């Protein structure tokens, strides 16, 4: 399928008084894509999302959603989007059913289809048992689900989620993630977060933003190819670094301390060779940890680099 741009952001800038929160940001979201929007706190993620959803006006630039400009045709543009802001916009003194019905009405779901839409969305967000309860009495995780439910009740082609897993316990996080994954099967999703493993677990493409500028944009698979991967080994009687370096597949070796080494490799893991050599050479191998934090490395590297540049520090 030819990728069609559902959201097109062009040259977007946004000022708060004199502070520039977003600086000439441009990107696109294609149909059927889950886009991870990553950045440290205060990088401009939420601002960007608020502009896309029409909650803030851009200072410069243009946002087009499925062909509709958010400024010139806000009604059509907004009907293409489901938005879950940082704090779920729920009325605490309404029951889940009442609230979702109201949301469906606001999103102009046809009167005859409202009850069906509510049932459907409750099912897909796991809210069946709590339909009659007041939202204010639900746990944070359930409130978050209600928030997601209101974002998808009118079946929009684009869903925008702003930090959907903040403040949830690990089990809830896992549930919300699988919910997001299932959303991504039918819709395009933009997911903002500063949790890196979340992006790795759910997204097709990742964008890193820092101080309002896009500093990285690539498909998630490219991460694994772009970056050398690394395993960390620990040995009681390590050989000379040169010996390790000459092993098959290894590109580079870094000593972490006397016993621990980072072994960087390209595509084939050297684990097997290392174990064999260790036994043969009596190196006393006692630990071997595959490093899966490649996105975190990238993130820290990118955001850190910028910091150094802006501070003018040379290393």
């Amino acid at each position: 399928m030819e990728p069609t741009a559902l959201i097109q952001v062009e040259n977007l800038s946004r000022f708060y008084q004199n502070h520039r929160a977003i600086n000439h940001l441009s990107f696109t979201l294609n149909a059927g894509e889950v886009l991870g929007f990553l950045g440290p706190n205060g990088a401009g993620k939420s601002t960007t999302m608020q502009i896309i959803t029409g909650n803030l006006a851009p200072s410069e630039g243009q946002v087009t959603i499925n062909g509709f400009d958010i400024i010139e045709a806000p009604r059509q543009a907004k009907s293409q989007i489901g938005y879950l802001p940082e704090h779920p916009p729920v009325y605490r003194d309404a029951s889940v059913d009442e609230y979702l019905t109201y949301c469906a009405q606001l999103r102009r779901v046809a009167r005859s289809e409202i009850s069906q839409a509510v049932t459907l969305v409750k099912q897909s967000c796991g809210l069946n048992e709590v339909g009659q309860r007041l939202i204010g009495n639900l746990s944070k995780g359930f409130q978050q689900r209600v928030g997601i439910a209101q974002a998808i009740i009118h079946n929009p082609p684009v869903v925008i989620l702003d930090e959907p897993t903040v403040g949830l316990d690990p089990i809830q996080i896992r549930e919300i993630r699988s919910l997001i994954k299932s959303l991504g099967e039918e819709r395009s999703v933009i997911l903002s977060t500063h949790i890196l493993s979340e992006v790795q677990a759910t997204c097709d493409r990742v964008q890193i933003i820092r101080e309002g500028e896009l500093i990285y944009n690539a498909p998630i698979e490219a991460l694994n190819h772009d970056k050398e991967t690394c395993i960390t080994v620990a040995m009681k009687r390590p050989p000379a670094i040169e010996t390790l370096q000459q092993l098959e597949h290894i590109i580079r070796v870094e000593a972490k301390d006397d016993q621990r080494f980072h072994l960087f490799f390209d595509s084939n893991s050297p684990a097997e060779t290392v174990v064999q050599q260790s036994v043969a050479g009596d190196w006393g191998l006692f630990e071997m940890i595959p490093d899966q934090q490649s996105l975190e490395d990238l993130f820290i590297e990118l955001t850190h680099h910028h910091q150094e540049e802006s501070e003018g520090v040379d290393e």
Partner: protein
Amino acid sequence: MILTIARHELRTMFLSPLAWVILGVIQVLMGFIFLAQIENFFLLQPQLIHLQNTPGVTDIIVASVFQIGSIILLMIMPLITMRSIAEEKRNSTLCLLVSSPISMTEIVLGKFLGLFGFVVILVSMLMLMPLSLYSGTTLDFGKLLSIFISMLLLLGAFAAIGLYLSSLTDNQTIAAVSSFGTLLMLWLIDTSFADGQTVVAYLSLLRHHQSLLEGVINTADVAYYLLLIIAFLVLTVRQLDRERLL
């Protein structure tokens, strides 16, 4: 769509005890004033008999009850309007409305109609008291209708002003205090410029109320209230639109 929002507003108002308490308190206060006026009427009655062209029950009791009532409502309306936008801002639920395919104007009109629905309920309940007199005497229904309309217009204007001041802040108390201050100011104009035909005196909320209460439906007075309501609704729309730029 406007009606959807209005219905929701009205529902939410009655979900919290505030609306019920306000209705109850006003009813008790107005009931007290009503009884006091009836007693007053009995005192006046012997003198009235000797007069030609005497004012009727509707004039003496009902009009004065609602005249005093409008001052009480002036103090209470800010409590009704304070939460309408300020609370949504505080709980960040305004975002739900703004990111839905609805225009700002529809949101504000919906909110206002919700408040106005409450006003209609409130005034209708108060109108029941004078209607109870019908069992013992004859009433001037034309005048009652005029009083009903004038109360709706007056409270509608209170609601529009309160709605605007509620859109300026995310703090309900500030919204209540500032709308109370504004309404009181518009009332005080009347006492300080009582004689004047000046522009300032013309702005007074209650001066226009007076002739309507007497049963004179004057286009100028009705237009005053309608323009006031429209002006504050437009200001509210502009305020909410402006916030997206900040």
